[in-house]
């Protein structure tokens, strides 16, 4: 039996020094199977390793790199925060 795979759209955001390193603040990717946050990073950043202190969020909640990402999710990567 043939499975028709409908691609899922995922938004990926970068902030602060990471945004400057990546060169843009937002992109969108289409994937045909669920990915973890680490796999989203790898796909967007040409398989570069995850920077050591990087923080990750899915739909504006902190997550770890093994969190799985769903259709229409917003994934964000950013350096340690320095507010206040």
């Amino acid at each position, binding site marked *: 039996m043939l499975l028709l795979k409908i691609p899922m759209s995922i938004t990926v*955001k970068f*902030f*602060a*020094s990471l945004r400057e390193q990546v060169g843009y603040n937002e992109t969108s990717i289409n994937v045909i199977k669920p990915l973890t946050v680490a796999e989203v990073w790898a796909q967007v950043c040409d398989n570069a390793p995850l920077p*050591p*202190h990087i*923080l990750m*969020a899915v739909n*504006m*909640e*902190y997550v770890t790199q093994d969190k799985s990402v769903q259709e229409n999710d917003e994934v*964000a990567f*950013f*350096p*340690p*925060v*320095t*507010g*206040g």
Partner: protein
Amino acid sequence: MKIEILSEKLNPYECLQVYEKTLIAQGKWGAVSTFVGTMRDYNEGDTVQSMFLEHYQGMTEKYLYTISEMAKQRWDILDTLIIHRIGEVQPGDTIVLVAAWAGHRAPAFEACRFLIEELKSRAPFWKKETLNNGVRWVENCSSKVLCN
């Protein structure tokens, strides 16, 4: 409870006066603990001319609401207020205002301290400093200590 992300100059004491007038619990609180964070003209031994504050719109507000709710659950407090600047700031400018109202001083102090510690460690804001000879992103010392 109030959370505000502000791109204009912030006068913390005027904000406190205005906000206190809106509190319904007039005469009910006996203690207010507040914290004001101000931009210094130096950091890590260098003169800082100005600073740019970036944030993750949406997630910042969500996170600040979460810690405000946590504070209300953990301490016997009546209300809380958090206001944080974004955009271009100058030395002497207020960056953040946190306040907690309570019947007594211990919960007011503890909730206020909790809010600023949580904000500093997890709220998605980033500072970029303009020095005499260039710009640099501020690094979080505690994350270096914790992660290295």
